[in-house]
């Protein structure tokens, strides 16, 4: 399976689309940093965990769109034509599907590495801020639920109909840029930029990074539902191999 993983990575990442998408992600992240985050969210420092969380939350829609876009590779008509060959091999469809998801997750991690790298460069070069630890918790709260939910919902949508993936992309755009706000904001942008306003200021003037139970539950729900959808998608992979 290592070989399959290697080839899947190569197919996904070593092409002009991914490089273009990487560029788009990077450019957008830089706009967000220099356009929004530089002011700091909810009157906190631009390098507060709140601002950093908002940065990740604002860039996630584009990153999730990229992941969904990569998923279309696996559900495109062209891919279906190759499936008549791969479907006749003895490979375990569940493991095969997992390996492919692993390749997409790797693509996500590369994108995230770019986003993190850009933000650290931004903080260091413009604001002379060199710490990393305050960013770990917001990153953990934003990134895994986004990835798992995108993979889960994307796989399921793709298996039902590739057109649904585009509908999902549209939904991501609407939710990501229209915003739901509150604790249940899927990307957390509305939460990070509003919740700290209700908190008392700490010693340095910024409210401490304490999160509400609602938000933590919401993150867990997204992670859980995403995981569930992912398992359903994998289950559908097994079924597909034996029906018309």
């Amino acid at each position, binding site marked *: 399976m290592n070989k399959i993983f290697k080839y899947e990575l190569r197919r996904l990442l070593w092409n002009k689309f991914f490089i273009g998408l990487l560029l788009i992600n990077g450019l957008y992240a830089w706009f967000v940093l220099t*356009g929004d985050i530089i002011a700091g969210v909810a009157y906190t420092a631009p390098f507060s965990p709140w601002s950093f969380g908002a940065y990740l939350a604002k860039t996630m829609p584009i990153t999730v769109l990229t992941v969904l876009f990569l998923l279309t590779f696996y559900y495109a008509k062209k891919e279906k034509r190759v499936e008549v060959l791969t479907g006749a091999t003895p490979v375990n469809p569940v493991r095969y599907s997992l390996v492919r998801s692993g390749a997409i997750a790797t693509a996500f991690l590369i994108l995230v590495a770019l986003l993190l790298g850009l933000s650290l460069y931004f903080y260091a070069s413009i604001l002379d801020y060199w710490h990393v630890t305050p960013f770990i918790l917001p990153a953990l709260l934003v990134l895994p639920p986004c990835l798992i939910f995108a993979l889960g919902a994307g796989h399921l949508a793709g298996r039902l109909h590739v057109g649904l993936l585009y509908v999902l992309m549209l939904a991501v755009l609407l939710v990501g840029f229209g915003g739901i706000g509150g604790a249940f904001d899927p990307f957390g942008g509305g939460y990070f930029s509003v919740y700290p306003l209700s908190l008392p200021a700490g010693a340095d003037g910024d409210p401490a990074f304490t999160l509400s139970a609602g938000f933590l539950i919401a993150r867990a729900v997204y992670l859980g539902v995403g995981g569930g959808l992912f398992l359903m998608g994998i289950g559908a992979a097994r079924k597909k191999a034996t029906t018309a």
Partner: protein
Amino acid sequence: MKAFALYRVELRRLALSKFTWIAAGLSVCGPLFGYDMYVPSSTWVMTGKYIANPVLAGAVLWAVLSMLESDRIYRAKTDVLTDAVLSPDTLAASRMFAVMTLCAAVSLLTALVYLPYTMNKVGYLFELGLYAYSFLIVLLPTWWISILLAAALYQITRRIELAGLLYAVCVYFSFSQFFGNHYFTHWINPIILSYSDGFSNASPLRITLYTRFIWLAIAGGAFALSLLCMRRYQKNLLGSIARGVRKIYIPITAAALVSAGVFLWTGQPFVDHGPIEYDYEYRYRRDVGSSNTRVSSASYRLEPNVMAGRLKGRVTFDFTKYGEGEDWIAMNPGYTIAKMTVDGDDIPYKTLIGSEVNGERKTVFTLPPVSARRNLVVEYEGFPSSAKCFPLSVTTEISLEYISLINDGVGPFSTSFVPCASSTWELILPSGLTPVVDHVLLENPEDNHNGTKTWRTTIYRYGLPWILAADFDAITFEAAGTAVELIYAHKYDRNMREYGVSKAIADVMNYCTEHQGKLGFAKGKRLVMLQRSAMFGGGNAGDGWVEWSEDIFTQSNLSDPLKGASAMEVFAHEIIHEWWGGLGVVCGEYDDPFYAAWSDEGLTVYTTYRLMKEKYGELYAAQNYIDVWQAAVDKQNRGFYYRHPEYLAKLPEQYQAQLNSEARETNQYCRMPLMILKAERLVGGEAKFDEILQAIHRQYASTGQMFTYQDFLDACDLREEDVILEQDFQI
């Protein structure tokens, strides 16, 4: 011919496509969003509300069709068949022309659909020309740009989803503040901050037309470039380009169009190339230099070309010069000097290209030292530009219906000269325009019998006058024992009379006179109130005059003063400036004139609050004034860079400028009124405070002496720390 035949059948195919009709239907619905959801243009003016915004909203909604249409031919795999008949680039170009034709038809349909409703809503202010121009200049070219770009992206990537994503990036670029809030980056959402009901809309239409040309050229170039990327001979992108460039006319067309776009962009005449931040200290740097030249008289002759928006001018200075030294004049960077002579002989001069600051540019020369009076003539011509530090403000316009020449937009001036205290002016204007020079409505023109009239006047002060010309009307009435002359656009005559504007003005003046003292005019014993185009925005006041943007006098505003609280505030605010600032008490600090919270605005805003409190009650005033100030101050106090100024210094210059400007505004318009309110409470209430203000007014008004913050504290018998706002200060 084959291409034309293809254009015809493509057009028919599009017309028969169900999707085309859905897209056309959606596009016709686009302007609906402009009534409420997408309102970038001022909604105070009727034409802005019912024409500008719907058209701008409609312009944004269109792109998917051309992408899907490009995609369709490949999805159906018909390229195998069509490529055998015609080259793919000819096919793509024919299809694009067909889609563009369809766009024109849909825009016409859209214009017709909204016409009856718009005519009904805008009423007697409706003009068919403006309506048609709005669709022709704003909507249709934007649709064209959009489909050219979308098709180009599709043809380059050949992936509809990727092209869609890239298109979204381009849209983001257009909307993003990151690229600077100026006209030229807005390819899909042209900036029209305001239309004008009563004056002219030439400025926004001219600049929008210009930006449309820029982006049509760039998008057309991108489309031509994308024709090179059409996949052929089963080759990839690069292979196809390598084949495509052999049709040399395609890369040449692409390069020509893109170069035209770039040339238009860099050579645009609307905004100068000065620094993006206003340089408050430039004046002091500029004015260092020779003052050996003494000017005894200056006469200007201005001849605007209203069709081209250009000004041709000539100024004659009678001078003497008592020593050596370089002289200079400065004027709007849009003007170029055609000739400079001394007693009829040309003299050398050098215009310092690239030296634009605050919307002016210097030209240097050396006048000969002479004791007898000589005469310097400067002839100049050009299209007046806006300063880059205020790129969106339209203070200067030359058009058939409106002329506005402010500051150095009028012509050259120099502080290297010892100036004369008066100047004569000769204006040659179209017959329909009446000029107002330095807030005086001119009279008795000379008819040139060629559709123009010559107006002459003399102004008795140093520097350049403000010149406005439009189809002005004037009414004169008395308020608080003072004669008031209200000058406004003829189109507003009905509003002015129906809504009793003169009474509203009298109310404000009576209040201020009663509570803060009587105005003493420096000249003429008359207060001139002048209406200006909505593009001017807000208000302004000076010695014996007040200016307002027209939107304060619009039907929707005048018929509901409560609804129009903010506009009515401006209205009252600007009159009150006559007591605090204009010709009353001038507040400021000598040592820190740029960033001080203490200025005329504090007392003016405070007085406006008092007036509104008397008019609409305590609750209304608290909600609309005190709460608003407090919220702004709270926001400023909490702001990270306010708490940590050490980080502010690390930010890029543009961002620092923005934060400083925001801070200055909050300080002047919110923090200081709140501190004045605190002072009012500390001295014992409104009645006592009014007595203090009246005493200040008596002492300082019309004396020209600056009223400092310390003077204010002394008058109230308070110390600085008494009125400072604590974090938890609440009223």
